[in-house]
């Protein structure tokens, strides 16, 4: 299985600012995703991070709010822009390995609190 790290592990931010979360994988992977887990809620898919092209966003999520980069097969970033308290969540990166099993592996998550 892939080993996934995320930075930062947690942060407290002021309203109106932006935070970029990094996801690093120890091996090349075919697919990378970003999820959000709001307090007391389920994990919700934000977008699929596509290497070298624009991310594919799920309904309810837009690029202006959650810009995503994926410059190579092992790294991706998610930015939470113009934050409000409603953005307080755990943000998780997940990957599917090159062996293309039906399994997603998740990073440890980034706990974001917006004041």
């Amino acid at each position, binding site marked *: 299985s892939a080993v996934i790290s995320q930075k930062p592990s947690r942060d407290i931010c002021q309203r109106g600012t932006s935070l970029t979360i990094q996801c690093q994988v120890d091996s090349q992977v075919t*697919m990378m995703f970003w999820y959000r887990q709001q307090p*007391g809620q*389920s*994990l919700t898919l934000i977008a699929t991070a596509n290497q070298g092209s624009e991310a594919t966003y799920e309904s309810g999520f837009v690029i202006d709010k959650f810009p995503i980069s994926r410059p190579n097969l092992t790294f991706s970033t998610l930015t939470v822009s113009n934050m409000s308290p409603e953005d307080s969540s755990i943000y998780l990166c997940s990957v599917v390995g090159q062996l293309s099993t*039906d*399994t997603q592996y*998740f990073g440890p998550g980034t706990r974001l609190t917006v004041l």
Partner: protein
Amino acid sequence: DQQVKQNSPSLSVQEGRISILNCDYTNSMFDYFLWYKKYPAEGPTFLISISSIKDKNEDGRFTVFLNKSAKHLSLHIVPSQPGDSAVYFCAASVESGTYKYIFGTGTRLKVLA
């Protein structure tokens, strides 16, 4: 509209006994189901999955049962161990290989020693 529901937010079970975690879904197009386990401060880890063409899949102490007519799946852990204490999420997708999972809200399992 919660398409995947875990109606029990928590469950306590004695060590050595069976743990049964339940999950209901509403979308009849779902054809692939998974269970993930999550410890505090860690990401979810894959536990077991089942395709809609099966009604049971077993892996060691973990068995998942699928009842398509009832749109219900369950995870059985036998025997339960204190290390099984975690939050368990069920997830579903419309098609195996799309990797677009709809998750439930999770059930916190506590196995008492």
